[in-house]
């Protein structure tokens, strides 16, 4: 199968084009001025044409089945089932963030799942190109469903670490916890109070932050989780989802 066509190539081309065009400063200025005038006269035409071009060009074909089989821990049949479902929902082969949020929101009708879906999207989109392809999807699932406990905890840490700097700060944790509580919606018992997420974060940090430096590192996190029975047990919960 041919190599997947990634969106980054399209992003690069316009800049290249622009660089070649600037011969002299004067020409460059004139060109920009003319373009600015044209764009001001017909404001949205250019963008929409470009947008349309981009949308139609994004059609992603995944790697070969054998390759994916080797890279993930799913069997051939499982990959087939996964891809069929994936392709059904996203015929173009990639999920962008909005579609992702929509899909995830369908499972939590009572609350607002968009923030958590945003974090999830960033966790799945490992190469940070703004879309989740089938490979990203299946890699993520492979870790979550068939990975070792270490890998799962790693993945969870990666999810919580929003800016991917290797530390979970209280603010990051607060964002995550708030997004989880958002998914509950407002009709809950007991009624959700303002300080509940904050309290939850405090509890978490008390448990996890061993050296009390205000951040949780990956080692502290994994250490602490491995010593917690409940967490260990719940990690095994979704083994047989597929």
């Amino acid at each position, binding site marked *: 199968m041919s190599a997947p066509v990634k969106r980054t190539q399209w992003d690069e081309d316009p800049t290249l084009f622009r660089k070649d065009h600037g011969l002299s400063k004067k020409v460059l200025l004139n060109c920009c001025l003319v373009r600015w005038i044209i764009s001001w006269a017909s404001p949205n035409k250019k963008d929409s044409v470009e947008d349309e071009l981009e949308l139609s060009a994004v059609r992603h074909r995944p790697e070969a089945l054998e390759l994916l089989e080797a890279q993930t821990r799913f069997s051939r049949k499982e990959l087939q*089932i*996964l891809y*069929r*479902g*994936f392709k*059904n*929902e996203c015929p173009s082969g990639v999920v962008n963030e909005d579609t992702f949020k929509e*899909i*995830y929101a*369908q*499972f*939590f*009708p*009572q609350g607002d799942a968009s923030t958590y879906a945003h*974090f*999830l999207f960033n*966790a799945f989109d490992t190469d940070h190109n703004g879309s989740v392809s089938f490979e990203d*999807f299946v890699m*993520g*699932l492979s870790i*979550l*469903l068939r990975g070792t406990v270490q890998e*799962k*905890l790693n*993945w*969870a840490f990666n*999810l*919580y670490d929003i800016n991917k700097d290797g530390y979970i700060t209280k603010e990051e*944790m607060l964002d*995550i*916890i708030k997004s*989880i*509580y958002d*998914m*509950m*919606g*407002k*009709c*809950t*018992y*007991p*009624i*959700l109070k303002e300080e*509940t997420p904050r309290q*939850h974060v405090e*509890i*978490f940090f008390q448990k996890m932050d061993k050296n009390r430096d205000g951040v949780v590192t990956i080692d502290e*996190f994994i250490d602490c*989780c491995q010593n917690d029975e*409940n*967490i260990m*047990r*719940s*990690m095994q*919960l*979704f083994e*047989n*989802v*597929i």
Partner: protein
Amino acid sequence: MAAGVAAWLPFARAAAIGWMPVASAPMPPPPREKRRGQDGLIILNVSGTRFQTWRNTLERYPDTLLGSTERDFFFHEETNEYFFDRDPDIFRHILNFYRTGKLHYPRHECISAYDEELAFFGIIPEIIGDCCYEEYKDRRRENAERIQDDEENENSKDMVLPEMSFRETMWRAFENPHTSTMALVFYYVTGFFIAVSVMANVVETVPCGSGPNRAKEVSCGERYALAFFCLDTACVMIFTVEYLLRLIAAPSRYKFVKSVMSIIDVVAIMPYYIGLVMTDNEDVSGAFVTLRVFRVFRIFKFSRHSAGLRILGYTLKSCASELGFLLFSLTMAIIIFATVMFYAEKGSSASKFTSIPAAFWYTIVTMTTLGYGDMVPKTIIGKVFGSICSLSGVLVIALPVPVIVSNFSRIYHQSQRAEKRRAQKKTRLARIRATKSGGANAYLQYKRNGMLAEAEEEASKQAGQALVCKSNPTFETQHHHLLHCLEKTTNHEFVDEQTYETSCMEVSLSKPSMSRSSSLSSSPHGLSSCCTRRNKRKSFNVPNSNMVAGRRGSIQELSTIQIRERPMSNSRSSLNAKFEETVPLNSEDQSYITAAVISMPTPPMTTPEGENSASSPDFLQSNIVRVSAL
């Protein structure tokens, strides 16, 4: 929820691992997976056309023929496929519904054939996707009207039922002249006399040449006064008789008197009678003359005879806002230009523009491009503004007029369609809201009987009841487990809106904690037996017992809720569910019962079983198809 999204459930469940490290409480155990590895291809032979699909695709909707064991009745052993003797073209859409979760309506298909196929395969038409729903409803309504018309025609073709009173026959004759010969004759006679009367009014004023002894010309009315008077009398006689007859025959006299047509009738005949009364009084004869003007309104009596006239009147009425706006803008322009012209022409001598109201006439004549020429500006500045006035007149008047004309036809059709769409929109919004709440309520229901379902299932199997097996952990159960995990993570529970509002009220009223004893009243009726056994299980305590309203109030709530959630049609599950009062209903069935259940106050622990079984059929009646809940 679209069936396609079901494919993402494994992903959503896997992503739930992200909650584990921050969970406040231990997670619930996952539902037991059953019948794994049975995903195979099914061949569906529909009148020779073979369709193939995965077994799982069909089983997404266990409520339909293809998704349940009912399809086994159609299994054909020799060819190892399922054979259906139905229309393959329509079946294509039905199968697409399983695949995509959306049911489409093909426009070229006959509506009744389509309805029959849907009914055969157990699919409720209400789940047709929004893209095709309007079209479907339109066609359905046309079909219903056609059937109704046919029935009416048949009924009217029969001879008049002898039970109809004389009054009703008369009214019917007046409204539908073609029902009997007498009515037709009467119809034509009145029409003739209306025409005659109008013509007489017109001819009356024509000069008829000078009389033998007179110098000047007289009108025909004065020359042949007697003849015209006799003609007028005859016409008015007929009209009066007709009016009185209609008044007698009208089913609702008050409504009849208020109607437009009767007012026109009265206005048409009153001048004659007033004239009769006032002939000798010279002073008011001037007023009497003006009354004769009203005789011309007899022409409007023709609108009973002409449908087109009625339509015109109706469209004028519906265009009233546009006409009003035209009038308003015209008035604005007239006032502006009249003022300008007056002040411009003030200086010139012998100017006809004596005042602003006098200038109105000039402005109107100029703007409508009539230009009589009786008033013309003389100063240069007057002429300049005069020309601006005539140019703008063209714009102000010539532009809106075609718009209004096209509005006539557009508005007429559109108002009919807009009504339809508005009605459909309400139901569509209600459906969307119901789906959303249905999903949430289904989960709450699951919470109450989810754990019990497995135990009950075993019990029923031991009891040897051969029922339609619906308690396999499908998409629904897995989804509910996921929501349960979320609850455990945050240590808060999902509740429905009512309970939330009550607890809000509680918090504001700062009532003490709820009574545990009435937690039993929250149990669904179908599970009365198991719930009495398990009333120790407090973890599913939903505090709906804290209804502020009294018992009577709650019953009232119950009835209103039931009425509000009248089903559109009986789903398969509701039919089956009638038998299964002691077996746990699948959470899907009770997606709408939940709201009703909560507000029902059962006498705590005294006779739960007796009451419950008695009232459960009522609840089961109010089921709405749960297919849309997914």
